[in-house]
């Protein structure tokens, strides 16, 4: 099958490649770009382990072909660290509040939380539970994930206040 030319920005870097048009975006990220933070749990868009941020939206990257991401601006969990390599606020809160056990769903959870807290910077517990309902976790019962997101919201708001 003829290869398709694709070009996109991933974690702030421009990438360009020739890909089989049937390649799913998650496979392109993991196999071609060796960005293995986004994980595959189902390939049917149910589990959310492959969640990335595309042009300001949370997207399950097994849902789309690589060609559909042509020209897009993509952020994965790897792109959420600060410029100096230290943990971003949401990553720090997940680490500190044990918002993970096995860690397999974590990159998708954090990437989804990153977008959720921009959609709604002051979420209630219920807002967080519904806002994260597309991401499955089998270890934690979601308890510490919900707490980590709530703490991240507080920390981000405090940062914003301090900046103002």
């Amino acid at each position, binding site marked *: 099958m003829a290869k398709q030319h694709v070009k996109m920005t991933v974690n702030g870097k421009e990438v360009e490649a020739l890909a089989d048009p049937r390649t799913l975006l998650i496979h392109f990220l993991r196999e071609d770009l060796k960005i293995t933070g986004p994980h595959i749990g189902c390939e049917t868009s149910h589990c959310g382990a492959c969640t990335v941020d595309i042009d300001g939206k949370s997207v399950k990257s097994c849902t789309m072909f690589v060609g559909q991401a042509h020209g897009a601006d993509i952020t994965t969990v790897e792109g959420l660290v600060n410029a100096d390599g230290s943990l971003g606020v949401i990553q720090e809160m997940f680490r500190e509040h*044990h918002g993970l056990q096995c860690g397999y769903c974590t990159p998708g959870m954090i990437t989804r939380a990153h977008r959720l807290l921009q959609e709604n910077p002051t979420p209630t517990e219920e807002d967080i539970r519904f806002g994260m309902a597309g991401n499955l976790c089998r270890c934690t019962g*979601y308890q510490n994930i919900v707490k980590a997101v709530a703490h991240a919201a507080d920390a981000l708001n405090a940062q914003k206040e301090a900046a103002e």
Partner: protein
Amino acid sequence: MARDEFEAERTTYNFVGTRPDRPDGIDKVTGRARFGADMTAPGMLHAVILRSPHAHAKIVKIDTSKAEAAPGVKAIVTRADFADGLDGENWNILENVMAGDTALYDGHAVCALAATSMLEARDAAKLVEIEYERIPHVTDVDKAMAPGAPVIREGADDGSVPAGMHPNVVRYHESGHGDVEAGFAKADLVLEETFKTEATHQGYIEPHACLGHMGTDGKGELWCCTQGHWNVQKVCAALLGTETSALRVTASEIGGGFGGKTAVFIEPVALALSRKANRPVKLVMPRADVFRATGPTSPASMDIKIGMTKDGTITAAKGVFRLSGGAFPEAPMEFSAMCAFACYDLENVLQMGYDVMSNRPKQAAYRAPGAPMAAFAVESVLDEMCNQLGLDPLEVRLKNAAKTGSKASYGPRFDQIGLVETLEAAINHPHYKAPLAEGQGRGVACGFWFNHGGETSVSLMLSEDGTAQIAVGTPDIGGSRASMALMAAEVLGIPYENIRCVIADTSSLGYNEISHGSRVTYASGLATIKAAKDAVNRMCQRAAAKWGIDPDAVYWEDGYAKPSGPNAGEFDPMHITEITANMGATGGPINGHFEATPEGAGVSFGTHIVDAEVDPETGHTKILRYTVVQDAGKAVHPTYVEGQYQGGAVQGIGWALNEEYIYGEDGSLQNALFLDYRVPVASDLPMIDTVIVEVPNPGHPFGVRGVGETGIVPPLAAIANAVSNAAGVRMRQLPASPPRILAALKDRDAG
């Protein structure tokens, strides 16, 4: 190993019981952690397994000629590419890993191929022509043991089965004590009911994945997500006909297991393809294959009969447990039977189990295998009896609770146990006293799990700067890298942050049994403590040599070697860094080691309280409040312990309300994806309250009991009781999904 060597010896701690940062935190929040599918190798091929679409079929012909000619295909394997002449469990595993002449369930592996890309492998898989001849199948456990059911495997009975039973019944268990008939005669109320639960899947989010490379000389390397890489090594070597030590296995970071990654499914296939192609092969299971061909629990069908006097004393209890482990003889029916009444101190108890083969995938362990369904049945009958006699369900459980010294329903006498303490904590918890609104119901239940020790080997290596590395062989499925470092810090007297615990590969440490049976914090923890003490002894010897005194006159405290008293001499305490800095010149590297099969695991009990609301229009159940009370012996890192309690409870909520294997009339699995196999999501759940009870386990130096499994034993029962009390109709089949609840309400209203 003698029990007394492990007598409890500490009651106050500097590190154990604190809540430091998780050692795996940064790796897991940045994407740096490497899971099963994250490893690559130069020249790597991608593999696909072809699976039977039929529940039961003769494999007439496999024609691979077109696939072999397809672009990129480098190797194709069938059963002929594996060892022959195996017997026992190795034969069963091979029979499951790659079908012989018959496909035994929907999803049974039949053939596999490897190609230079995943897309090429998937394309080529469509070109393999497999001719099947369908034969009659059976997937229901009760139907599989009824007269006329198709026989899965002739002669599989292990000799324990009573005469006259269907050949699909392959193992029988019976245990108990006293005279149950005499006990029932003394009761004021005798209740006998039948219960059913469907199979569920562990539902780990990471599919099974591995990367294997084996040369034609039989030497190989394997990277895989597993709960036990020495077991993978042993099984793969047997199935490929090579020596165990020729294969080195490294365990990846593991994305959930819950028992399901104790079994071997795909690793021998990747290695067989690799040996044929002479290239590394990566094999990752699609989610549908994970559902169809790995894991599930056994469906269960159970009869429970209990006698009780008016004051709530249980006079006798009897249970029959029929479980199917799929097309293989291994359903954990004896665990169902042995755990069923283990919470109670009974004069008369009898339990029987039947292991039944059917056309389902080979069952694998799932958190306290066999126990949750038995607890559901037993605790439902107790709840109903309390309702009928007007008794408080927790007080009745307290009245009958097993205590230290009680004769367990399954035989031995209990050592120091904490069921009474969990019940008292539950009775005094604000949750139990909180009022309920109209349409809401409360359920309670107790649960038991054995816990396990198992073969264990640990090494501890000191570095010249006084920091330490621990090599353990039990993959970290519940936070063991943190708990090992805490326990070692306690012995060495150095900061937790100065200790790094890693999971060693099979060539770097002695044999370690799988991370199962809630054994890791207990057994690897015990071995870590002993290995640290071994290193401490060596450091005391170095200090003694430097001071010119007897090693027995030196003791270790808070990171220092110290002379034991004025008679030993006047010397300044010697810090660990002083000893390790010069260790090359004072006798060589200082390491500690310990290996044993410890047998004092210490059983564990829990009591759960749950409030639920049932919508009579839709049959939907909402969990309003949930409290877990469980004995941890000693919680090494309480946050991880709470995490185990919360996770177990939520998996139980899924099992109780929604999760089930649904087989069609044709014997194929109807819901092999997360859309239709519905695990709980964040918006389904409340916060789960946890109470850690600590009744020390005398078999561990710090009193630790395993905590990973007990937490899933009470939820099915507690939720079924809450739902039954809310809806006003007894739910005797799980999951209590909306259609089942609506049907039960309709039946009740129809009288």
